[in-house]
């Protein structure tokens, strides 16, 4: 089985991390990272990047923003009443 180039590996990286690649490509990708330390690091740290962001909510909805949204909507609804 011919080795993938780093460029080919990078093109498949997102699908690989999302577990969307078929078994044959997956095998080739794993073979590549076993032999290419740079791509191994990029793969590992990109995976960690995704994991760190998954759990975060840096912009929780402030209560006053909610109140003003409800107020704007109620006004609009009142205007639209027949």
């Amino acid at each position, binding site marked *: 089985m011919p080795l993938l180039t780093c460029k080919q590996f990078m093109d498949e*990286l997102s699908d690989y991390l999302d577990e969307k690649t078929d078994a044959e490509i997956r095998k080739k990708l794993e073979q590549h990272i076993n032999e290419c330390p740079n791509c191994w690091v990029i793969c590992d740290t990109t995976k*960690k990047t995704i994991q760190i962001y998954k759990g975060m909510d*840096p*912009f929780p909805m402030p209560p006053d923003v909610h109140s003003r949204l409800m107020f704007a909507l109620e006004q*609009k609804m009142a205007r639209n009443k027949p």
Partner: protein
Amino acid sequence: MSSPIDIDEEAAVVAQARLGDATAFSELLRRYEGKIFRLAMHITQNREDAEDVLQETFLKAYEHLDQFQGQSKFYTWIVRIAVNQALMKLRKRKSDRSVSLDDTIDTGEDTVAREIAGWDENPEQQYSREELSRILGGAVEDLAPIYRAVFVLRDIDELSTEETADALGLSIPAVKSRLLRARLQLRDKLTRFFKRKGDDAFAYM
């Protein structure tokens, strides 16, 4: 995973709202206002603009609810409105430069890793919640708006590639290439904070 949405149950709420049921529309608002606000904050990076986007999105959705076809999720429909509103805000602020989801800036150069260094096992634990939030937020802020929208929808809201394409009016390959670039650029930025101290790329080989 975001809380599972019962499509049939939601379709019923939307149908009620379309009949003019204010309570049903408020229910939809309650479900999605937080996500829309977060998306608007990520794209505009400005609280005042994000609040405007949030209001404009739900007021427009209310006004045009009869145009919602029900073939997609309600959320992807309002995301589309919100992203358009948010990009309009950005265009107004940077009037000299157009901002579009379709900007072609695919030179490939921006995905080239500048620094290849391994990270600690749980690198985020070296930082307090506030510091971590600032680091992660700052890295997203540095992304181009087109990448921010795709990244937030795919990796924070956990929409599928198809749903993200639908919400943003992009093709599936366009979503995939933007997501890859966003992820790699964020990885590159975070490496500055999370790399193993005193390590080089091959120290663990």
